[in-house]
């Protein structure tokens, strides 16, 4: 029973390589394009078969040479399924919007990226993961630099990835030096032996595990484009739309996967707090970037960064299954929004034209209704049969869902509507919220079955609830109580910070205060 599955797993990695060859040879012809797409669809089918297999049976390991094992578990299969389905949507889109010669390069390199992503997802050991990771970096670098006119975006990307990959390879080297090869089942033991190696720097005692953990988190921060890492994601806007869709849907996710897979190495280290700080910091900063930007793709870039921040924070507090649920859903969400970015002009006109169909509803009433709607969803969640509500991270999902349904109602009821329609809306939003909770509980339950990961000892999901309340409180304060001048200042800061700061190296000289003084003299006179 196991053996055919091993072949299927290997097939998944080989299919995109075939696609790569086909793309290189015939990517400009219709037949070649269809062949590559066909291979991706077959890949999707194989991933689906594997998904059925891991649902019915248990995870299985395919050992390989040099400690490069592959694993067929639910996490890996889900990750591969996601990568293949994104490709299956983006590839035909790209075939129609890119010029043929550009598409050929896109086909070749996107298939290379697919192999690398699937290898990363289904890696059965640290070594295999790093191999997939570095291959993916290389594929992304080549993909962007071969589709961008001009090289600026790609250079920044290359530097960033070299930093991140260097950190990860460093972590692998230390681990290997200490313990030899490490498959996932052996990882807790590896973590223990790393923690045993202590190095005292004066009063501070550092373990080898700390060093490895920091390197891993740095690598994850770079790949997921988090603050305070390099801002490579916005520089890739110079690439065509389908490339952006692939980057935002697939590549940035790997940071989360890395943390989840290597979590046994991170327990009792500064790794988790570091990831939490980077995650929450990015989620907060980029959320503001998302709302101030008026260009579609710029807003999407900031949105991705903030979503990745949230995902990373979920990983850092040990809510791994929720993080994977978020990562998968967000990838699908963001790929679609990028593909539809051309609709930006028409969408804005539509909104403007239909913005005054009804009069505004009074704010207090809206608040009350939104609160009632949120409370309704909360009550529903209490009585509904949700498998993971009883577990620690269930409260996290429910809290966020309640806040969101309140937010949706708040917007929905901005304009006056007949009472019956308002009630209907509230029922619909609550029902939608419940459906979301049930679905997330199903997916999370599926993913978490038989999975007992290493969780951080100090941090818990309630930290994220606290962060949400803090952010909500701050926003409410700014919206209600801050004077307009302060709001304008915050907005201006966020606005300029959301764009890459231009290098002022060409400025011939820093202005002396001469002129300023002249003007101020005049004023004082």
């Amino acid at each position, binding site marked *: 029973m196991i053996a055919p599955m091993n072949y299927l797993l290997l097939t998944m990695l080989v299919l995109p390589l075939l696609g790569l060859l086909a793309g290189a040879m015939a990517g400009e012809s219709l037949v070649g394009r269809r062949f590559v797409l066909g291979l991706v669809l077959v890949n999707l089918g194989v991933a689906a078969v594997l998904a059925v297999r891991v649902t019915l049976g248990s995870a299985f390991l395919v050992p390989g040479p040099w400690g490069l094992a592959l694993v067929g578990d639910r996490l890996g299969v889900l990750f591969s399924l996601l990568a293949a*389905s*994104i490709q299956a*949507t983006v590839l*035909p*889109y790209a075939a*129609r919007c890119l010029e043929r010669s550009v598409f050929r390069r896109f086909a070749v390199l996107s298939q290379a990226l697919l192999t690398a992503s699937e290898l990363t997802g289904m890696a059965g050991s640290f070594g295999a993961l790093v191999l997939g990771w570095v291959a993916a970096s290389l594929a992304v670098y080549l993909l962007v630099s071969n589709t*961008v*006119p001009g090289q600026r975006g790609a250079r920044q990307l290359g530097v960033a990835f070299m930093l991140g990959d260097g950190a990860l390879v460093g972590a692998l080297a230390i681990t290997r030096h200490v313990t030899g090869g490490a498959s996932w089942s052996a990882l807790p033991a590896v973590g223990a032996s790393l923690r045993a190696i202590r190095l005292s720097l004066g009063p501070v005692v550092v373990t080898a595990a700390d060093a490895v953990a920091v390197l891993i988190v740095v690598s994850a921060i770079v790949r997921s484009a988090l603050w305070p890492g390099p801002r490579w994601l916005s520089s890739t*806007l*110079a690439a065509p*739309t389908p490339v952006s869709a692939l980057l935002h849907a697939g590549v940035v996710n790997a940071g989360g996967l890395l943390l989840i897979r290597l979590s046994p190495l991170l327990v009792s280290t500064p790794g988790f707090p570091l990831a939490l700080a980077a995650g929450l910091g990015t989620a907060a900063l980029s959320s503001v970037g998302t*709302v*101030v930007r*008026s*260009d*579609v793709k710029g807003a999407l870039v900031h*949105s991705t960064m*903030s*979503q990745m921040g949230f995902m990373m924070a979920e990983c850092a507090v040990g809510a791994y299954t929720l993080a994977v*649920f978020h990562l998968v*859903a967000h990838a*699908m*969400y*963001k790929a*679609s929004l990028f*593909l539809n*970015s*051309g609709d*930006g002009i*028409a*969408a*804005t006109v539509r*909104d*403007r034209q*239909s*913005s*005054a*169909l009804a009069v505004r509803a009074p704010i207090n009433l809206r608040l009350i209704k939104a609160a009632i709607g949120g409370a309704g969803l909360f009550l529903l969640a209490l009585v509904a049969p949700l498998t993971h509500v009883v577990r620690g991270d269930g409260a996290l999902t429910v809290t966020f869902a309640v806040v969101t349904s*309140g*937010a*949706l109602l*708040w*917007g*929905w009821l*901005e*304009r006056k509507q007949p009472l019956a*329609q308002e009630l209907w809306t509230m029922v619909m939003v609550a029902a939608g919220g419940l459906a*979301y909770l049930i679905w*997330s509980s199903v997916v999370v339950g599926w993913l978490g079955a038989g999975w007992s990961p290493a969780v951080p000892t100090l941090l818990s999901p309630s930290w994220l609830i606290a962060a949400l309340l803090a*952010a909500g409180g701050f926003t409410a304060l700014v919206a209600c109580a801050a004077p307009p001048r302060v709001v304008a200042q915050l*907005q*201006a800061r966020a606005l300029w910070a959301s*764009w890459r700061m231009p290098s*002022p*190296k*060409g*400025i011939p000289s820093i*202005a002396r205060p001469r*002129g300023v003084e002249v003007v*101020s003299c005049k004023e004082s006179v």
Partner: protein
Amino acid sequence: MQGIGLSASTVAAAARARLLIDVESAARLLAPMWPLHSFVAVNPLMGLLELGFEGAVREASRWLPMQGYPSPQFMEEEYHRGRVTDADLLAVLVDRRLDVNQTLPLLHAWLSGPEAIPASGKAGEQVDLARDVGWSYAIDAQLAAFCCAFADEGASTWGLGERSGGLYRCWRAVAAYDPLLRRQLRHRVAHAIAALPADPEEALLNALVRLDISEVHRVAQLRRRVARLPGWVSYAQWRQEWSGPDCASPPLRVVDLLAVQMSYEALLLDPEAMKANAPPISAGSDSVCAAIWLEAYERHYQDDLLAKLPVRQGPEEAKSPQAQIVFCIDARSERLRRHLEATGPYTTFGFAGFFGFPVAVAGMADRYATARCPVLMSPRGVVRERPAAGQERAAAFYLRKRARAAAVHNAWRAGKTVPGSPFVLAEALGWWLLPSASIRTFWPRGARRRGPATVLDSGDAGGLSLHERILFAENALLSMGLVRGFARLVVLCGHTGRTIANPHASALDCGACAGAPGGPSARVAARALNCPAVRTGLAERGVYIPPESWFLAAEHDTTTDTITILDRHLIPDGYAPELRRLESDLAEAGRRCAAERAGALPDIPRRTNSRQLAAHLAKRAADWAQIRPEWGLARNAAFVVGPRSLTFGINLEGRVFMHSYEPVLDADGTILEGILTGPLVVAQWINAQYYFSSVAPEVFGAGDKTLHNPVGGIGVLSGEGRDLKIGLPWQSVAASGELYHEPMRLVVVVQAPLERLDAIMERDSVLRQLVGGRWLYLVARPSRMQAYVWREGTWHSWQPATSTSGRMRAGQE
């Protein structure tokens, strides 16, 4: 004391007035850019009209990194293809009185010469106008980022607050938080910003003093700065001069832009160091060879075109037509007219697609009315859509549906803004969005919105008075030469191009309707022409429309070549048989038209019949990944003014704007004057837009469509860039790195006596500038046997290039 104070303020006012004049003349380097939701093609060098074509190109290439002529590589290919020949060159040299033996070798050497700037041929390779100059790039990047937020019409969820004071005041209020200024000025920044004048003009004057720019060099220095941000300056030009008084978008002015830009410079730069660092103003390239090649290239086409026009009475149009169909002058109508006439006894007319009724139209659920007339006119009334009789309940239902959609959109915005909820929104929607994206990609299907039957009546409140309606109707009918012999059905057919997820969608719409679909204009005009009171008024003025004639509105979708009859509910029952016949003929003509057009589009499946091709084009139009749903007006080349008999039955390949004109109805030339000062200018703008988007894509083209990033609901950025892109995308004029559009100046062929044209040119200075400045070629055909071209202030009999070179050779021997 008071006297002194007064004179000081007078001096200040004079200084400001002079400044504004200088700013205006500096900004004339660039043309206005309409927002993309109502794209209007313009001549990008229209501000330099009085310099003539060659002069304007020379002036523009002094400031902007562009050539302005087809590249030598392009010409070399065309020369080898035989598209331009030695005979054409000879003819041009003779016209220009240049020595043939000396010049011809020079021209051939030019073909293999180097190219100064990589011009056309490299898609998307945009020249970052300020990249080479570090400090200006840094300043412009900060300014342009601020412009993106300032000009936003509601794309961001947290838009800037009070903007009515203009860009400069808005910027000054928050400039102290600009990281660039903070880094360079450190603790002095708040003080320095507070010391800036509150008024933009004063700030600009101050900055000019600080930067030591004297009044003599002011225009040049301002022009250099204008050239650094062509997109935003062009957009500001539209906003301040063309947007109309009741425009809701934020007030952006060129002087504000310059005030911010130069305030940055004054704050950051040392004038002495900057002078040393400033790029030299280039002298403008020597472009005589390029101009001659271009003229020869145009000459070749003109010879072909004029040779096609019939010398004798050709096959005649239907005498008693089953229906008369009026199309827009748009070049894309030419194909449809030809195919329709081939299917049955129809006569067709060409007229500006707003059908003479300059109104703004608001849909039932719309907040704003949008202008539906050429931008050279301003709307004379607002027509609101109202439900047709018996449709009130359906209309109420429709409005509720739209309100619900708006509420969902508000919910979406709130969900994206409230802390925490974007994460859940992504988790909840992703599972649904990707499958639907896959379906959209694999099986493209356009969403067609269906609403209740409605009426657009310009006689309603807020619309036009009866007198105005009669006047506009009479003008329209006289101009198109349709004053007698009305058929039972007269169709007014507007046009639109329906594409999705396409920022430049409105570039495919009707230019005569200000970049909007032409259907509503057709409905307004048809409604007025069917109105009994209007018909009585027309009869009093001598245009008698028999009661059995019915005016129909229709819309031609140029992307799919399908024609929809509009306002079907208004048509009396008696017309059913004719209508059926007409519709089936229109459908057949559309299919033939689609089949002809499909040949030129890339990636069209081979071995398909016309039905399959039409289906393929429909799929293409609904495809969100498609970057070239149709070619639009690419390859447009000529403007023919005359009766249809002049062009009847001739394949003009969809390259010709056609305006109907009956010389006998226009003894005093007023109708012709209207055509040559209105529709002709619009056509010239379109032609020039395509020309410059093709030959100078770095500056006057919008670049690669796959890099486009819609901003603020008004325009696109390209990739990482922050300046608005002007002009047409590269994919609208070229495919696989090769130009599809043939860059040529418009040739205008008019069937009219020379004296009439002389008189019009005498009266109208713009026309004189267009013709005299060689922005277009004017060819007159006083009779079927003769053609004259206007050159250097007089009429020359048209000689085909082959005959000129033949005579030359004979003379030399």
